[in-house]
C-alpha cells in the first residue's frame, strides 16, 4: 500500500521514539522494527532515517554512542532520554486526538464505502 510522504514524515518521529522507548537500538534495527510494526506498509528510504535520528539527538530527545562489541563492527546506538519520553507522550496525545477525529469522520460519512477488511490488513 502506498502511503503519502507527508504521512510517513509525520509519523516518523513518534515511531522512532516509541521503538527507542523499548530500549536502545541502532539504525538498521529501528528500520526493521518499523517495517514489522507497519506490516511492510511504511516504506522508508533507508538513508533518510539517519538525518532524522541526528535531528532528534540535536533536540535532546535521544542520545547516542558508538559501541564496538567483541569481534564485531563499530556501531552507533541510540537511546531515548527523559525529554524524549516526554515528547513521545505529547506526540501520543496529539495522535490520539487526530485518530479520534478521523474515527468520527469515518463513521459519519455514509458516502464512503466501508473499508474491505480483507486478510486482516487494517
Amino acid at each position: 500500500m502506498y502511503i503519502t510522504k507527508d504521512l510517513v514524515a509525520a509519523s516518523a518521529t513518534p515511531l522512532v521514539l516509541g521503538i527507542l522507548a523499548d530500549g536502545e537500538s541502532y539504525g538498521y534495527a529501528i528500520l526493521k522494527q518499523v517495517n514489522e510494526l507497519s506490516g511492510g506498509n511504511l516504506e522508508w528510504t533507508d538513508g533518510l532515517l539517519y538525518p532524522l535520528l541526528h535531528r532528534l539527538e540535536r533536540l535532546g530527545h535521544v542520545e547516542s554512542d558508538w559501541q564496538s562489541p567483541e569481534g564485531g563492527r563499530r556501531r552507533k546506538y541510540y537511546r531515548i532520554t527523559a525529554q524524549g519520553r516526554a515528547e513521545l507522550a505529547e506526540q501520543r496525545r496529539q495522535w490520539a486526538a487526530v485518530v479520534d477525529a478521523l474515527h468520527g469522520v469515518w463513521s459519519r460519512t455514509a458516502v464512503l464505502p466501508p473499508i474491505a477488511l480483507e486478510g486482516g490488513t487494517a
Partner: protein
Amino acid sequence: MTVDSNERLESQIGEWRSYMRRRRELHKTDAEELEDHLRDRITELHEAGLSDDEAFLIAVKRMGSLDELSREFAREHSERLWKQLVLPAEPDAPAAARTRRELPVMILCAALAALAVKLPGWLGASMDDDDSASFYLRNLSLFALPPLAGYFCWQRRAGWRTIAAVAALFVVGAVAANAYPLGGSTDPEDEPTQSLVLTAIHLPLALWLVVGIAYTGGQWRSDRRRMDFIRFTGEWFIYFSLLGMGGGVLTAFTAGVFNAIDIDPEDFISQWLLPCGAAAAVIVAAWLVEAKQSVIENMAPVLTRVFTPLFAVVLLAFLGGVVWTARGIDVERDALILFDLLLVVVLGMLLYSISARDPAAPVGLFDRMQFVLVVSALVIDALVLAAITGRITTWGFTPNKTAALGENLILLANLGWSAWLLIGFVRGRMPFARMERWQTSYVPVYAAWAWAVVLLFPPLFGFE
C-alpha cells in the same frame, strides 16, 4: 560466500564509501554509520538468497540517492557547509601531526611579533616619545614581518639557503633604515624628511616581497608560486582588514567598560593593545589565509568582479568630463601620488582577476570590461604625465617627485604591455597564460624599485 566474491563486495563497498566521503555534508562518522547499515542490509538480502551483486545493488538503492541523502543531511547539519571557519575540523591526512603543531607555532610567531613591537620601548625608545617617532616610522615593517617570514620558513620547510637569503635581506633592510641619517632632527616641530617617509613606505613593500621568498619556500622563480603569493597578498589584506575591524570593536569596548569603573585604559590601549594587536594580526591573518585557502571562496577576486565594471564606468566618465570641459587635469602637488594609486588599484584588479581566472576559459564580457578599464587608466595617466613633466623640469627633482614619477613609469609600462596582451587575448590571438606570465615576471621589478628607493635614494638626495 567465497573469498573471491567477498573481495569483490568489499571493493564495491569501498567505492561506495569513497563516494560518500566526497560529500562535505557527510562527516566521516555519518559515512561509517551508513556503511554499517548498508552491510546489515546486504547480509539480510544475502541470507534471503540473493547474490552479492544483487544484494549490494538493492541495498544501495534502498539507501536512497546520494543527492537526496546529502540534501537531508545538509538540512539537518547546515553548519557543516559553513564549517571549518576556525580550525580544520578533521585532520585525517598524514600531515595531521604537522597540522596540529601549526596552531602553536603560529601563536608563537604572533607572540614574537607582539614582543618585537614592545622591545624597543623596554630598551629606551618609548612609543609616545617624539624623538622615537621617527624610529618607529622607519622600523614599522621590521617588527612583524620577520616572524611572518620565519613562520613561512618553518611551514614550507625552507632550505637553509632560503632562510639565509631571507635573513640577510632583513638585515640589509634594518641597516638601511637605521644607519642612514634619515630623520636626525630632534626638533619635534620639524616635519619628517622626505627620505624618511619614502623609506617608511618602501621598506615594508621590499620586505613584503622578501616574505614572498619565504612564502614560496625558496621557489620564487616559479611562476605558479609567484601567482600563489599574489593571491595570498590579496587575501591577507582582506583578512587583516577584517581583524582590524574586530580589533576596533574590542578597543572601543575596552575603553568603554574600564572608563565606567573609573580606570583609565588609555595607556594600556595605546601602549599594548593597539601595537601588539596589530603586529600579531599580521601573523594571524597570514595563518588564516593559509588554513582557509581551500575552504572559503577567495575574496579578492570576488571584490574585483564587483568593482571592475564600476571603476571602468567611473574612469570613462572622467575621460568624458575631461573632453567635455576641454580642461586639462589640474596638477596639484599630490596629483601624481593620486594617479599612482589609481594605477595601483587598476593593476590590483587586473592581478586578482587573473589570479582566479581559468586560463582556458574563452573571452567574455568581463575581459572586454577589463580591457576598457586598463586602457582608460592608461589614457588618464598619459594626460597626467604630460601635465606634470613640465612642472618637474622647472622645479627640479626632489626625492618624493622622483619616487612618484618612477613608480608611475613602472606601473605605466606594466599596464601598457598588459593592454597590448589583452587586445591579443580579446581578439583571440593570444592565450591568456601570456598575461599571467607577464604579471608574475614583473614582480621582481617592484622589488628592485622598492629596494632602490630604500638603499639608493637617501644618499642620492643627500638624506634630504
